[in-house]
């Protein structure tokens, strides 16, 4: 799901870094507004590590298995820490496993992190809608489905408009549309998984779901 080095033109990777810097600055600014900003750092860091590990859980979908992205739920539980968390996760992924890339770190962070923030805002609507298990499940599904969905669309748009292929604009649009549709089953699995996880957290440790 991450864009490797060498494919995108530098204008795109540089804009990615610029956007990432801006969003990170905004997040850090929001975190520093809290009474004791340091208190949440260990929680955010350990949850980041836990999300990193949990995204390695493989779901059997014969004939293969899929793993999850979980950026929606990450946004929900980490709030304004979500974007820095994703940036750190992607940095370590690029450095340790060469998955993603160093020049594309900025743009990859935007692809994964922006939807996480959106999910955080959407999930906060639960405060108005009610915090029953059904509502938590419904919003969890929305966060999981939407988080991966927006990421997939962003990724495909960036890849297909920038890959140095002289593709026709209409062909490009069809390709983006078809490939997005192909991801819908994955988005549904992600949504269901996130909903189940959110309900579990609501039962066991409701304070993890920040909007709570």
């Amino acid at each position, binding site marked *: 799901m991450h864009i*490797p080095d060498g*494919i995108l033109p530098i204008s795109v990777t540089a804009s990615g870094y610029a956007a990432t810097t801006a969003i990170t600055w905004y997040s850090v600014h929001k975190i520093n507004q809290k009474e004791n900003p340091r208190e949440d750092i260990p929680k955010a*860091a*350990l949850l980041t590590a836990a999300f990193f590990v*949990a995204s390695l859980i493989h779901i059997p979908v014969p004939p293969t298995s899929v793993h999850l992205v979980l950026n929606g739920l990450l946004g929900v539980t980490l709030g304004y*820490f979500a974007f820095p968390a994703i940036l750190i996760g992607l940095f370590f992924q690029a450095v340790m496993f060469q*998955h993603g890339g160093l020049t594309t770190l900025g743009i990859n962070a935007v692809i994964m992190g922006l939807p996480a923030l959106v999910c955080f805002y959407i999930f906060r609507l639960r405060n108005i809608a009610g915090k029953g298990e059904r509502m938590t499940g419904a919003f969890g599904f929305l966060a999981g489905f939407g988080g991966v969905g927006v990421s997939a669309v962003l990724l495909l748009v960036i890849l297909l408009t920038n890959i140095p292929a002289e593709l026709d604009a209409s062909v490009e649009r069809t390709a983006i549309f078809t490939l997005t549709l192909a991801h819908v089953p994955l988005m549904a699995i992600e949504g269901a998984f996130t909903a189940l996880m959110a309900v579990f957290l609501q039962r066991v440790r409701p304070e993890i779901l920040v909007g709570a």
Partner: protein
Amino acid sequence: MNIGLDQYVYLASPLHRWEPRCKLIGLMALIFAFSFVGNLSILPAMLVVTAAVFAVSKLPVSFMLRRLRYPGFFILAVILILPFVSGSTVVLSMGPLDLRQEGLISVLSIAARFLSILTIGLVLFGTTPLLTTIKSMRALGLPSILADMAFLFFRYLFEISDELRRMETAMRLRGLSLRRFSIHGLRTLAWLGGSILVRSYERADSVYKAMILRGYGQAGRSQYDLRASSRDLIALGVILMVAGGFIAGDILV
């Protein structure tokens, strides 16, 4: 989860001895200069510089090959598809497939850039302990929230990963076997994921208390005793000139 990235950080080479802040700035500049290169005639020079940096670093070739294997798959897909869909000048026709010149050229430059950037990245992070790299980022102005999160993330990643493995083993020992997709199986795995989140969350509490007891958050003396010698700075100047040369060359040629 064994990363083996710092397997060779204790070798002795000029790149290992290079001051980490200078190394970070210099090699990152080189990486971005490489990502700028689009001109075919400059690609050989880029590969030569990459090979030279790699040779100076004394990292074994097997280390690089092992690390290139996984990201290589994606690039392989691009290499196999792009020459057939991109461009209009057909150089070779194979049945329904046309090999196109523009596609071939962009594949060449993508592959060369990918190889060079990844190799320089491996040299950068394979010759310095990861924690030292983060310290030098902090010294260069990375917000402390990010640096602290990165330290703690790295500190607990492997423990949490081991914990997940233990839980999975325990589930299997109790007779769980998930071969088909089912809502029941999905729920079990979601609870597994949820448990790992809850455990980490609870652990963070005691981690924070222990950190406070040890003086976390108090202004103390700087832990970043990095010092760049004139030799480090000269090396940085040379690398920055090389990086600038690539950008200038790509614009001028």
